[in-house]
């Protein structure tokens, strides 16, 4: 699929013709011609007058035909939906619809910072004959997830041997690329603590009509006759039935703590910031659970306080990816808990996975509050291991180590209060804590 954005420069000649302005070179040609001719006449020197000849001749010849229109600029993208690390390709075309050629046409396209296209970042200068078009091939690499834009294009056209110039910002000549995060491999084999519906892919811990065999037990009133295990019943001379575990779906709520960002990310190739880890992990977890038929909801814990309603299926996965593209860090003050995590907004049985770097103190408070509310909460630590503060003086290192100790204390306190905290490590990294959560969820509870 290709996308085209066009800036029409030649549409209204009468108005656009006013964009052409004389350059300093035109003023210089006139000034020098006048001064040299005057000087030659006054001094009676033919040779001095002749010095003005090329200036007058060149200006007169160049101005014999003046341009009226600006060039049409068109930006085309071969593909607008990409993944991190994929190639960004497109074309910038400039069409000269005028009867006068452009001696030089400089095109400077604005390129998003996370698109590695060094050749197109520099202004490209081309000659465009009248009635012709020139194409500039755009080739680069999408370094990081997000919405990236190619364009607008700043156009500088020179005509009449540099005596006339037109500058214009082709603001409508833009193409937007959606660069989706690469999903780090993730595969959780453990069940979710409390499944919700009566359909789905998860083997629940509750008995049900269909599904995996849980065991054989004595017949009880209410059991269906078709579930009687006749072999065991004949051997024991008492009626026994085969008990199975029901298959159930689950609701997973992914909470993205993006109150603050940290780390040095250079795109998909090397390094990752908190935001990168959060988005990529969220995409991987959502993909995993949506593939299993579960419902996934998204919550951005920041000042933006964005939410995505729970839903299941391939369509929800695409929606999640689009939703993740707009994730941005910031807003440590005023992150409203009730706005995004209030009891009326979250399902009681949902597994709440909080992706947090635990930088902002309010994140730990949010986790504690979720746990006190009786929810199944799992914290995924998204702080990169190699993160370090900028060197601000002799005490930076000591202050950083103190902060790390304080953060470790917070993690320990959270674990003591029943919030498992696990570092994001891709495949299977959540299995152990999911198993613990499942056991604790199925255990009898004291009334609160």
């Amino acid at each position, binding site marked *: 699929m290709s996308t085209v954005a066009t800036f029409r420069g030649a549409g209204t000649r009468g108005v656009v013709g006013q964009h052409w302005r004389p350059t300093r070179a035109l003023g210089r040609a006139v000034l020098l011609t006048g001064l040299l001719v005057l000087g030659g006449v006054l001094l009676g020197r033919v040779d*001095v007058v002749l010095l003005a000849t090329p200036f007058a001749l*060149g200006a007169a010849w160049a101005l014999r035909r003046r341009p009226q229109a600006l060039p049409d600029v068109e930006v085309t993208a071969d593909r607008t939906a990409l993944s991190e690390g994929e190639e960004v390709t497109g074309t910038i075309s400039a069409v000269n619809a005028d009867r006068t050629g452009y*001696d030089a046409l400089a095109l400077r396209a604005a390129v998003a910072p996370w698109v590695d296209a060094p050749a197109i970042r520099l202004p490209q200068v081309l000659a465009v004959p009248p009635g012709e078009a020139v194409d500039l091939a755009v080739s680069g690499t999408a370094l990081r997830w997000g919405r990236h834009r190619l364009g607008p294009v700043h156009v500088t056209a020179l005509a009449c041997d540099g005596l006339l110039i037109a500058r214009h910002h082709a603001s409508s000549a833009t193409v937007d690329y959606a660069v989706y995060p690469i999903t780090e491999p993730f595969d959780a084999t453990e069940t979710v603590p409390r499944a919700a519906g009566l359909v789905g892919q998860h083997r629940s811990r509750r008995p049900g009509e269909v599904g995996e065999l849980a065991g054989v037990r004595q017949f009880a009133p209410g059991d269906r006759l078709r579930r009687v295990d006749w072999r065991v019943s004949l051997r024991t001379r008492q009626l026994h039935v085969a008990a199975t575990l029901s298959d159930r779906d689950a609701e997973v709520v992914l909470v993205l703590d993006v109150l603050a960002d940290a780390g040095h990310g250079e795109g998909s190739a090397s390094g990752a910031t908190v935001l990168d880890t959060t988005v990529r992990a969220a995409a991987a977890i959502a993909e995993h659970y949506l593939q299993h038929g579960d419902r996934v909801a998204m919550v951005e814990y920041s000042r933006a306080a964005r939410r995505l309603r729970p839903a299941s299926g391939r369509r929800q996965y695409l929606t999640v990816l689009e939703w993740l593209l707009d994730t941005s860090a910031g807003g440590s003050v005023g992150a409203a808990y009730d706005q995004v995590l209030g009891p009326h907004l979250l399902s009681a049985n949902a597994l709440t996975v909080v992706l947090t770097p635990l930088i902002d103190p309010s994140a730990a408070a949010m986790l504690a509050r979720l746990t006190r509310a009786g929810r199944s909460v799992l914290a995924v630590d998204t702080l990169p291991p190699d993160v370090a503060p900028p060197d601000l003086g002799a005490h930076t290192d000591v202050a950083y180590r103190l902060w790390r100790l304080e953060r470790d204390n917070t993690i320990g306190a959270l674990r003591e209060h029943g919030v498992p905290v696990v570092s994001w490590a891709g495949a299977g990294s959540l299995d152990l804590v999911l198993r613990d959560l499942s056991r604790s969820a199925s255990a009898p509870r004291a009334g609160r």
Partner: protein
Amino acid sequence: MLVRAGVGVAGLIALLVAVPAPALTTAYGLLGVVALAAGPALAPDGHWPSALVLVTAGGWLVATTLWPEPVTVWRVLALSASLYLVHTLAALAAALPSDAMVAPDVVVGWLARAVAVAVVASLLSAAVLAGAARVSTGGYQVATVLGLAVAAGLAATLSLAARRSAPRS
């Protein structure tokens, strides 16, 4: 950078042709000539190109008036062509961003047009100089007539250009 280098080289040639030979024998004179030639190359969008042309023309007048340097045809032609190259290459360099990647056909086309103008102007100048040498009454009247003609032509050209540049309603 190539275009700016062209501006500098053309300016240097013009100065070497115009400036009196004794001035070029001293280190200060040579340094001044190089510095003056470098001005338009470094700042083509400023007043340096105009200043260079005027200083060179002044140097030419001084060299041919105060020093016994001959006014030969080749010197006049070389001076006018190199000064025009300074002017037109500075016009291109002034409009281009310093980090621009310029397609070769832009520079080649530009130089071709500049050389064509310089050749035509040289032919015209050579013809005028040859005609002026045959006139026994000296160059003063010829310069006056030629200057008036050029001034009238220039006025007509500028008038035409001004009419064509007026916004259309």
